[in-house]
């Protein structure tokens, strides 16, 4: 087990290296030149040269790449170019609000998705099933931008059910979570339903019925335990991406999270922040994949980690 984990971590190196090089090339080669923003409205060639020197962007590429790799190795990405805030501090402070929204969102989404999927799979083929599926599809087809604009306007402002925006604890997270749910539950439900249906058709389900097990137990015990495997993969692999993907919610509701920070950083050509977040999220993705595989073993005895 330990050997497996060590080996998997070892295997992450080439991928990480690829991510690093890709990020580096993209942002050093093509990204905007921060010096021109930092130089202010009365910039001149000298001051720009000075800024470039201070930032180290006047160094040859290989030196910069080496610095970047050293930063990753030491978990110290230096200071944000735009705000001079230590990058590690940015990530630490933005993570909390992001997770405050994302964790309840993911948990609710998964639980509701599973419950509905099992119920719907049970009545598969019926009118209810089709109606729910079509409703889901319609729900999915509306852009998240529209959801946010309309929900914020309607629920928060017109009806006054929630604070319009702001960030001061969980109360402010409720509406973003609700919108997140409204947007994500439809595709999740569709997906989970297909996972469940895949299992319902399996022979072992017939065996369970042959044993005289009740229909409820068949669904909630036999089927769910098996469907949990693809569900787990989906949920786990989605998490890191969600961290960034929630930027629209974060922007509209003024949540000081990671997603908004990334967009802001791109707008400001704040490379240390972008690079750090990318590397961290890539690492998180890989670690989550590993976690998923470890969890697999807990759920699915057929999986042998070796």
């Amino acid at each position: 087990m330990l050997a497996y984990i060590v080996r998997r971590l070892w295997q992450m190196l080439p991928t990480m290296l690829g991510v690093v090089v890709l990020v580096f090339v993209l942002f050093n080669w093509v990204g905007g030149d921060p010096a021109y923003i930092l130089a202010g409205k009365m910039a001149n060639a000298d001051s720009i040269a000075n800024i470039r020197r201070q930032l180290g962007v006047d160094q040859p590429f290989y030196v910069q790449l080496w610095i970047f790799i050293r930063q990753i190795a030491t978990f110290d990405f230096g200071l944000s170019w735009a705000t001079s805030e230590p990058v590690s501090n940015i990530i630490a402070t933005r993570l909390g609000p992001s997770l405050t929204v994302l964790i309840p969102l993911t948990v609710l989404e998964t639980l509701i998705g599973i419950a509905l999927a099992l119920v719907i799979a049970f009545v598969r083929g019926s009118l209810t099933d089709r109606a729910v599926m079509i409703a889901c599809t319609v729900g999915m087809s509306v852009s998240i931008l529209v959801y946010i604009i309309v929900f914020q306007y309607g629920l928060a402002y017109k009806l006054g059910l929630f604070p319009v925006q702001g960030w001061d604890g969980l109360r402010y997270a409720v509406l973003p979570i609700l919108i997140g749910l409204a947007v994500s539950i439809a595709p999740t439900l569709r997906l989970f339903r297909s996972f469940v249906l895949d299992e319902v058709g399996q022979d072992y389900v017939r065996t369970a019925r042959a044993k005289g097990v009740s229909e409820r137990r068949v669904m909630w015990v036999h089927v769910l335990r098996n469907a949990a495997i693809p569900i787990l993969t989906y949920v786990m692999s989605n998490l890191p991406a969600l961290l960034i993907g929630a930027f629209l919610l974060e922007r509209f509701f003024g949540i000081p999270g990671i997603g908004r920070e990334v967009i802001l950083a791109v707008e400001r050509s704040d490379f240390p922040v972008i690079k750090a977040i990318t590397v961290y999220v890539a690492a998180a993705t890989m670690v989550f994949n590993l976690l998923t595989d470890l969890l697999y073993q807990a759920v699915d005895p057929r999986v042998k980690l070796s």
Partner: protein
Amino acid sequence: MVHGAWRRLREDRVAMVSLAVVVAFLLMVVLSASGLIVADWEEEVGVNYAPPSFVGGTAAVSAPAAQQQQALPENPFDPIADDIRALRAGSVEMYGVVDPLADDLAQLRAAGEGAAAGAVARRATLPFGGDKWGHDIIKKTIKGGETSIVVGLVAAVLAVGLGTLFGAMSGYCGGVVDDFFNWFYSIFTAIPSVLMILAVAAVLQQKGVLTIVLILGLTGWTGPYRLIRAEYIKHKAREYVLAADAIGASHWRKMFGHIFPNVSHVALVQMSILVVGFIKAEVILSFLGFGVPVGVVSWGSMLNEAQNELILGRWWQLTAAAIAMALLVTAFSLFTDALRDALDPKVKA
């Protein structure tokens, strides 16, 4: 096989209705692209933010329509309006600065005064309202649909094409090739797609609709890749491929002559899923400022414009674009579901 799929599809009423909607949209795209309809969408036929006719041109719009109809707008609050009028007459204090074009302009003024273009009367209301410039929202929505759908389709073709090619090579060749593509894949998937899109957008700068297609295509290939690769690995071990080998077929022939027809349904389904995804993604791209260039309209750019209009009580652009998009996307998704079932070899009629 194809025949059976089509028959199964025809029996599905939802699928057929969806297909009809999709075809209607595609028809609209063709007509608008060939200039047969809505070629004049850019004409400013209404007053700005003309409300829909069924709502009526009430106080919702503050700008008086009459002001628009002047040939040369003149600001009534302009404190120097008199000076401007004086200017028209010709003389103006030059503070001792010489105008190199003075003679030319004097001659031209003398030659043809007043050939001002006659401004068209603008309508106070439009069937489904107007936008900021007074464009007809219906026409704009159709024109926007053209861009969005074309972007979705072409980007999906690109993404699925890349994904299929890489997936085929990776799955078929295995070994080092597979390792390489997998490495590439894990890099692409480790970086969240938003970041990837921003990065690629930054690389490609703004060059128009093609850029959007490239951005989406270059970041969207991972999904098809994973599936196609898995299919290729599965099929490579199938005996019909060994059989093809036994009769002396070349690798290329086996990859694309034998295996591809068997996995093409995966590519097809992926493609229709991506079309939907990309139409939606274009909205977000617009929001992030990587949208269509000026003079081109898409649903994404409309929704993005409409963001600020909703709080001003001008809901029609948002509604039109959102409904058009929802309709197409719903129909496309439902059709995709049906197609997936119909093409699924496991489901036998």
